């Protein structure tokens, strides 16, 4: 089995950050799928609205307080999130631990306020189609939030307990990318749920 | 006789002509493409093992032109077909002058048909048989009481869905008298198969006469047996769902029976309207149309024959 030649790749890194890593591609795959779900769900919201005589149907629009508060929390959480991504890519374990805990604090604060948000939607999922689609959007986003929070918790524990290797920092970095998606998708859902009912 | 290619009205004719155009173009396209394929394969079976690079390059230049021409012809053909579709569609969408308005409501598994009229007393309700005057366009306005159905009479018109919570409409126009069949085209449950209907087209005068007859309240039973049948009707489960104009029976969830004897079929085209078929239908509809909404009535034989006598008297 002699061949015409060989090509040596000795010494290539065994992991990498950013868009060359397979993890990044996997995360992007999930983001594309979930992003499509959000777009279609918002499309369904607008479709139902286009059919209705008046919108919202039989309920006042959701109260703005908690939703707006949450928007601010979520947008602010992008800062520690991005910082964590940076220190993860420098493989600075100590700072990664701090970053992850700060991120978690934001996430927990957000989840607590989210509970109040559900209380101030002024409608139930089984009231009418408006209530159903509002709940669908909110539950969808909350599901993503909860899964990412669990993911972050697991990563945080791992960062404290080990076993660690270099590519675990890739996981932290990609977790941040996913959080960016959770943050980035929210303003659209916020605008739909809270402001579309207020449109004339 | 029911075929989309044996149209009985101007609108169905337009669609049939368009269909023939598409068939003809498709046949030509198919023959050409398959001829090229067979030619290419035949050539390739006789060829030397492999072409040289120069020959391949030359052949590729020719192929490039051929594929380009093929693609261009495809675009032209499709554009032509699209244009003919748009033209026919535009003609069919033109609102007709002075149409007869008929409201069609879908039910599991029958058709409620109501002739619209400004005078409430002249609104006529019937079921499963659409009677229309020859030559006059008829606007059908569709909705559904339960699930989605689709109204289709192949020789007279294309389909239109009956959707709960929405109204749709379509025009039907027939230019020759006759009876044409159709059936529900959107799957609607157990008896989707036996949700049939017939279209009766007849000259305007005959249609008007039919309409007048149908507007009259039910005829009073004439014979002793029919009178007893009416009693059976009023005291059994019939009255909970059916109505007979001019009597106490006024429920609207099942077909109006005021002139049931004038119809050619019963059970949405499942059975001929004969006394024996009527009797077996009343006795055990679930054997004939399993899953239909009409329960068995378990009448004793003499009650049953009295009831059938009454129903057959409702001309």
């Amino acid at each position, binding site marked *: 089995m002699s061949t015409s030649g060989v090509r040596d790749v000795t010494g290539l890194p065994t992991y990498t950050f950013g868009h060359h890593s397979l993890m990044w591609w996997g995360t992007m795959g999930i983001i594309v799928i979930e992003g499509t779900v959000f777009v279609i769900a918002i499309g369904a919201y607008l479709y139902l609205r286009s059919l209705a005589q008046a919108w919202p149907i039989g309920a006042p629009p959701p109260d703005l307080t908690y939703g707006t508060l949450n928007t601010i929390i979520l947008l602010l959480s992008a800062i520690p999130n991005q910082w964590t991504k940076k220190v993860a890519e420098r493989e600075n374990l100590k700072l990664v631990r701090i970053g992850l805990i700060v991120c978690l604090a934001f996430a927990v604060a957000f989840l607590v306020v989210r509970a109040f948000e559900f209380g101030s939607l002024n409608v139930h999922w*089984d009231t*009418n189609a408006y209530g159903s689609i509002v709940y669908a959007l909110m539950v969808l986003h909350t599901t993503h939030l909860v899964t990412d929070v669990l993911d972050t918790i697991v990563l945080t524990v791992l960062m404290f307990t080990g076993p660690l290797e270099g590519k675990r920092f890739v996981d932290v970095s990609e977790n941040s990318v996913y959080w960016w998606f959770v943050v980035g998708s929210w303003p659209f859902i916020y605008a739909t749920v809270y402001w579309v009912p207020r449109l004339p | 006789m029911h075929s989309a290619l044996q149209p009985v009205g101007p609108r169905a004719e337009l669609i049939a002509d368009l269909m023939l155009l598409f068939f003809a173009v498709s046949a030509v396209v198919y023959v050409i493409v398959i001829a090229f394929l067979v030619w290419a394969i035949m050539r390739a079976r006789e060829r030397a093992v492999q072409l040289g690079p120069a020959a391949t390059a030359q052949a590729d230049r020719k192929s490039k032109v051929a594929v380009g021409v093929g693609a261009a012809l495809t675009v032209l053909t499709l554009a032509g077909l699209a244009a003919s579709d748009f033209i026919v569609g535009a003609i069919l969408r033109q609102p007709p002058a002075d149409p007869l308005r008929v409201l069609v409501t879908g039910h599991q598994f029958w058709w409620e048909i109501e002739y619209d009229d400004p005078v409430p007393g002249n609104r006529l309700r019937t079921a499963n048989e659409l009677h229309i005057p020859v030559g006059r366009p008829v606007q059908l306005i569709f909705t559904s009481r*339960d699930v989605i159905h689709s109204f289709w009479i192949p020789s007279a018109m294309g389909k239109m869905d009956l959707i709960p919570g929405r109204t749709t409409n379509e025009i039907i126009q027939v230019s020759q008298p006759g009876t044409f069949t159709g059936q529900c085209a959107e799957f609607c449950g157990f008896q989707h198969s036996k949700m049939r209907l017939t279209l009766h087209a007849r000259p305007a005068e005959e249609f008007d006469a039919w309409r007048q007859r149908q507007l009259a309240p039910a005829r009073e039973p004439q014979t002793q047996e029919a009178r007893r049948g009416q009693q059976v009707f009023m*005291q059994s489960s019939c009255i909970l769902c059916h109505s007979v104009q001019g009597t106490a029976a006024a429920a609207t969830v099942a077909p109006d029976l005021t002139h049931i004897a004038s119809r050619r079929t019963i059970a949405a085209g499942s059975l001929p309207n004969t006394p024996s078929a009527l009797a077996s239908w009343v006795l055990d509809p679930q054997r004939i149309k*399993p899953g239909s909404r009409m*329960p*068995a009535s378990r009448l004793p034989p003499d009650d049953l024959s009295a009831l059938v006598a009454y129903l057959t008297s409702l001309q």
Partner: protein
Amino acid sequence: MCSRSSEPRERATAALLSPYRAGVASVVVVMLLLCACEREERQFSAQGGSSPSAASMAPASITLSDLQPGVSTQARRGERELEVNAFSISEGQRLYEWFNCNGCHANGGGAIGPALMDDVWIYGSAPANIYATIVQGRPNGMPSFRGRIPEQQVWQIVAYVRSLSGQARKDAMPSRTDSMQVKPRQVALPREEPKSSAPPSGNQP
């Protein structure tokens, strides 16, 4: 190049086998679902004793007192149907509206007639009691439907009426109808413990 990997036939067998292993794992699921048969059957016409006779139409013998000691076979059949069969409850729901039960009882909240969603049963909450109430009628406005509603359909209505207060199997109840929502969702309703109450103005049954 020759591979030392396992024989493809073995591998194909393994591939074939793995579904069976998974099948074993899903035995638990099967057990859970076995009860589905009763729930899912679509019974179009009454089975058994299908001799069309006026007698079966009018079970005059059903009264409250008769039923206490021993429930008739019809009642038992009806009872089973009502506890488990989704199609019966659904048919009952349709007939309840078609036969205008909602004209008096509204959608279970009660209006002219008493409410059916609460825990108060004037003439008994057992299926046979409700059957008798529909067939015989009751004082103060409840008409008799004897001869009007066929037996099987009465049992279906009984099934639906009982489901209104949560007496039917939850997984057999429909979540809502395709109409205006005028009552709370049925499956969300609490199961009411039936209580009996004296009929109004001393009309003992």
